[in-house]
């Protein structure tokens, strides 16, 4: 089974996000594999281990993304395509999906995985956009999957508010991974050593038969007007006393002052 995982490099969730001159200041950031993509990669590897096949990574982004591609190959993925072109910069989920689709048309797949969203822009669109552009069905927020023996369909569970939905889907399809799907592995030393022997192919705008007006800020359908830091919260107060005393005082404040209970 050929499984493609679309991965994104994002700032570490432990990072403080600094807004400077209306832009995110990237200078102090540590970059990691998007957490939801980690679940996607892990599940793809588990499917490969069970059924055989190949796991291919596709990632769009500047040169720094290469580190994340390598560390993800170290987990056991077989090959990677790095979609890198200055024209891709300042894009949005729509242009990202467009570029990924252009690459996916050149790569064989039976199943495509994405994280359900990137923890940077928090859009949660790209996976579903690309499913539609490829005319494939999709299942989002996947927390469990079972592919039929013939590889032509799957029964998938997706997380919804207060429970799960059980979805029957034909393959090929796009699945977007939710936390809870699995426990991702760490790279082994052997895995890290093996990266050197794996192919990472870089594809530019031209390689993908795209034109500059389709991608980047020109092709984007979203325009970011401004970015700011969230408002600081008003300073609160510390209640003191014995547990019964503070409990009584807190309940009084919540009821009479804050009026939330």
């Amino acid at each position, binding site marked *: 089974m050929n499984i493609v995982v679309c991965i994104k490099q994002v700032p570490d969730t432990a990072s403080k996000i600094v807004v400077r001159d209306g832009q995110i200041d990237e200078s102090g950031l540590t970059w990691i594999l998007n957490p939801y993509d980690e679940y996607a990669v892990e599940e793809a590897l588990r499917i490969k281990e069970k059924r055989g096949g190949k796991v291919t990574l596709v990632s769009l982004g500047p040169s720094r993304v290469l580190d994340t591609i390598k560390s993800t190959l170290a987990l056991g993925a077989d090959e990677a395509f790095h979609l890198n072109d200055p024209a891709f910069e300042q894009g949005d989920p729509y242009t990202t999906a467009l570029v990924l689709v252009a690459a996916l048309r050149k790569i064989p797949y039976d199943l495509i995985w994405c994280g359900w969203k990137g923890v940077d822009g928090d859009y949660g669109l790209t996976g579903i956009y690309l499913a539609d552009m490829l005319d494939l069905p999709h299942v989002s927020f996947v927390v469990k999957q079972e592919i039929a023996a013939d590889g032509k369909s799957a029964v998938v569970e997706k997380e919804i508010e207060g*429970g799960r939905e059980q979805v029957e889907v034909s393959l090929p399809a796009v699945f977007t991974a939710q936390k809870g799907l699995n426990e991702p592995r760490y790279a082994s030393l052997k895995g890290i050593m093996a990266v050197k022997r794996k192919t990472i192919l870089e594809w530019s705008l031209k390689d993908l038969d795209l034109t500059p007006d389709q991608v980047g800020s020109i092709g984007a359908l979203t325009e970011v007007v401004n970015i700011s830091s969230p408002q600081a919260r008003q300073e609160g107060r510390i209640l003191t006393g014995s547990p019964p005393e503070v409990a009584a005082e807190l309940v009084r404040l919540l009821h009479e002052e804050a009026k939330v209970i």
Partner: protein
Amino acid sequence: MSNDILIVAEIRENNLKKVSLEVLGAGQEIARKLGGTVVALVLGNGVTGFVAEMEQAGAAKVFLADSPALAEYSPTTFTQVIVKLVKETNPAAIFFGSTAYGRDLAPRVAARLKAGVASDCTGIEVADGRLLFTRPIYAGKAITQVKLKSDPQIATIRPNIYPIPQAETGRNVPIEKLEVNVFPGQAVTKAILKPETQELDVAEADIIVSGGRGLKGPENFAILRELADALGGAVGASRAAVDAGWIPHAHQVGQTGKTVNPSLYVACGISGAVQHQAGMRTSRVIVAINKDPESPIFKLATYGIVGDLFEVVPALTAEVKKLHGS
């Protein structure tokens, strides 16, 4: 293009989701500024009864797609109904609730229409005749304002932001039944699986009692559940508690969990790592209970209690019960 705003009502298991009414309220406010009206689409099987709810909540017109072909949810079939209606009526915008349903459907509809989506919005304004969407990014560590260059302008709106409009009976608005002619979906929801004990989801709760590493073990979530039950709220958790396997991920609040904005958030034994803060900092009132007075969570707290949660939380539960007279 009209100046109308189309609301897609979410109906699950024969219930209209509260967020659909909130979104209708948002649509009404924005449509007024655009010089249009808010119209609603009710779609599903056996959903005719919900038309009145949308009507009473303020929809100027309700479209009804009631068909056995929509008995099981499938993003592609539901998309066909929505896209057909959009092409016939040309609304200025389409709003969905930012739920598993809205976030599954909106991008599929948008892709068909070659349109952008402002997801998980916490505010919408009108500027020069276009919508200006406020969206938190990095789970709220930064806030953006975005415009969409495409039409219709599609957004999903976070629950608990807009108030539910006052229901008004006796309104008599046009109802238009839509013919449903759809291809069968290739990804179809066959069943809804629920945990044995049905719990309120943190994303939908107005009060959340959350626990972290300070709880020391899974069994101690029972103490939080008692408080949450007394308050009529949901139980949340930090990533530390979820990653330790103490509670399922559905409860996680934070950057890799849910972003919540309840009226009251009670953080018990949670230190307040940035990725957790990101998920809950917009809560109206935050209570922090933690042994360590240096915990960053106290910087966000409206009310802080430095103490042992194992003593404070049960005392709180008792006080809340006293208040509610039970």
